[in-house]
């Protein structure tokens, strides 16, 4: 240690100085208070030993000045005092001195005191060093969080949440949210919505939900269905996250045109459907384990389907909302949420729910991430069928064939291939069709399903009518598809160059016995099956059936490029 010794008596300086040096410390000598302050600033000793009474500036005042000048840097000051000065000591210690030694000096005590101070100095040094490290660490962590937050926002595509039918709110407990809301439309305009909740909160939880975003957006964009996307998300979560980590998730697919809803809930509090009057129409409690727990083939994929006729609000939230506690330790709960949002238009319902939560919490903070999504199930929100006008008449000559894509599928392939998304993967690479993905997806889907369902599986559309019709139809279809032994579907696509427009010819033929297709050409829009072909007819420049109705050809014209 570097020790500063201040005393006006040379004898004392010699005596104590020698002793301090004999203990192995470096010594700085000062003859009075002014010198003591001066040397302190210049030499920054580790401790100061100082006489109470000195000429020019006394010990207590010098001590006060040293402490003031050193600020946050702590220098212990020990005053050396005679018994008769003891009553001044209290004042001195209040303004800066840390300890005292009585004259005559007992060297045994002096040594012990220096050692004690040495320990305190060392402790002080460690604390300061750790505080400095901590401050550095904090700055770096903040910076990293900024980067992480930016990355997260890019990955979750926040702007895609701006769907006309969707109202969402996320309030992270820390700077990053472990809750995720992601939404996107398929090329067929089906709204896919995911509300996910990773373990814990903050960065680790945010990292848990990240693997979901890529398959969700990429596969929705290509028109994959909910179960296929779910399988992929589950695979991703299992592959990426360590054991004991999982993601609770609710996945909803809303087809506004067909007015149907598909729900899969694994570990999210029950989803609720409120009618326009505020009545609770339906609940979807969690029926499955969260993603990432069971093995790939144990994942349960059965969806709950629902048909909505009137306008209604579908409400999803994470447990962080229901579990948010006020100062009294009471949870917010589903009843308060219902009261706030039931019977109001979706946007208002969301705002009212946020207000209700904030009123309820008062000054209390949420200890978990909170997320809330409300889907406005408006039957009129379905995009109207595109008008046939403006598409233009088919030219006499189709022009030069620029490319041809042919696919021929047997029964085995039809059972497990995702045919339409597969073809869309190719279509997405064709430049002239860049603006036409949604249309092409719809035409392909309808023609392919028509060939498979009616051509090969001989499904009757009448099965779809009735309350549980859709459910029954899908079950029956799955059964027949599983039993399909033979049959073939051929798909041929050709691209033609017509100058400023392009033409896509889609020909789908099946090996089935054919059917009376005349009724399909005079579609009855009240029949669910007729809607599909009516849609294709509206989108295409021409739609023709050949043979027994087992060959169909649609020609699609791109809009003129400007």
């Amino acid at each position: 240690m570097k020790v500063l010794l201040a005393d006006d008596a040379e004898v004392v300086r010699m005596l104590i100085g020698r002793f301090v040096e004999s203990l192995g410390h470096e010594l700085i000598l000062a003859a009075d208070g002014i010198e003591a302050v001066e040397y302190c600033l210049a030499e920054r000793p580790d401790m100061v030993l100082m006489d109470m009474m000195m000429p020019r500036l006394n010990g207590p005042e010098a001590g006060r000045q040293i402490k003031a000048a050193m600020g946050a840097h702590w220098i212990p000051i020990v005053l050396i005092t005679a018994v008769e000065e003891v009553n001044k000591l209290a004042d001195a210690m209040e303004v800066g001195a840390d300890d005292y030694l009585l004259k005559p000096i007992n060297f045994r005590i002096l040594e012990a005191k220096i050692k004690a101070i040495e320990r305190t100095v060392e402790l002080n040094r460690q604390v300061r060093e750790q505080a400095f490290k901590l401050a550095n660490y904090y700055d770096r962590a903040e910076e990293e969080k900024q980067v992480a937050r930016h990355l997260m926002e890019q990955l979750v595509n926040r702007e895609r949440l701006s769907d006309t039918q969707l109202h969402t709110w996320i309030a992270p407990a820390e700077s990053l949210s472990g809750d995720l809301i992601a939404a996107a439309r398929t090329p067929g305009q089906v709204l896919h919505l995911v509300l996910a909740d990773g373990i814990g909160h903050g960065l680790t939880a945010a990292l848990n939900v990240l693997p979901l975003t890529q398959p969700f957006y990429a596969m929705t964009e290509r028109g994959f269905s909910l179960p296929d996307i779910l399988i992929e998300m589950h695979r991703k979560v299992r592959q990426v996250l360590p054991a004991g980590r999982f993601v609770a998730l609710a996945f909803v697919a809303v087809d506004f045109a067909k007015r149907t809803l598909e729900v899969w809930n694994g570990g999210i509090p029950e989803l609720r459907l409120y009618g326009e009057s505020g009545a609770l129409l339906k609940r979807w409690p969690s029926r499955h384990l969260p993603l990432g727990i069971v093995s790939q083939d144990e994942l349960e994929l059965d969806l709950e389907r629902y048909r909505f006729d009137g306008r209604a609000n579908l409400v999803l939230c994470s447990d962080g909302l229901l579990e948010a506690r006020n100062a009294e330790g009471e949870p917010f709960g589903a009843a308060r949420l219902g009261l706030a949002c039931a019977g109001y238009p979706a946007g208002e319902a969301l705002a009212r729910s946020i207000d209700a939560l904030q009123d309820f919490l008062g000054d209390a903070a949420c200890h978990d991430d909170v997320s809330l999504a409300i889907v406005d199930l408006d039957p009129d929100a379905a995009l109207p069928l595109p008008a046939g006008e403006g598409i233009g008449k088919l030219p006499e000559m189709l022009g030069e064939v620029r490319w041809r894509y042919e696919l021929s599928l047997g029964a085995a392939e039809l059972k497990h291939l995702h045919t339409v998304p597969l073809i869309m993967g190719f279509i997405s690479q064709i430049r002239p069709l860049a603006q036409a993905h949604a249309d092409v997806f719809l035409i392909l889907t309808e023609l392919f399903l028509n060939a498979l369902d009616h051509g090969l599986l001989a499904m009757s559309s009448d099965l779809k009518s009735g309350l549980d019709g859709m459910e029954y139809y899908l079950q029956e279809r799955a059964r027949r598809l599983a039993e399909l032994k033979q049959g073939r579907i051929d798909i041929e696509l050709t691209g033609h160059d017509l100058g400023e427009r392009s033409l896509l010819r889609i020909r789908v033929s099946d090996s089935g016995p054919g059917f009376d297709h005349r009724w399909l050409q005079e579609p009855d829009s009240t029949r669910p099956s007729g809607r599909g072909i009516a849609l294709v007819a509206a989108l295409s420049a021409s739609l023709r059936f050949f043979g027994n109705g087992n060959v169909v050809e649609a020609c699609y014209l791109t809009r003129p490029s400007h």
Partner: protein
Amino acid sequence: MSAIVEVAGQTGRLLLAGQFDFSAHREFRQACDEILASTAVREVLVDFQQVDYLDSSALGMLLLLKEKAASSGRELALVNCRDTVRQVLEIACFGKIFTIR
């Protein structure tokens, strides 16, 4: 949270009390290691009688315990789950992979 281990014959009971969340990580892991180290134990009971709250991190810890118990051939059951605890376990559908009594 506190975690107390009681071994009686072939049954090892893990008595938890308080808030079972991420902050309970260390206590829970130590208690689990202790109970699984006892070779006499054939059945592990996690007793939630005194637990008033558990969060998703706690569910994660239970999954890890399940894995450890299974790999050493022990039975595992979650017992005395009351209101809040039962509700959280139900939402996560843990009844499908855990014995809950």
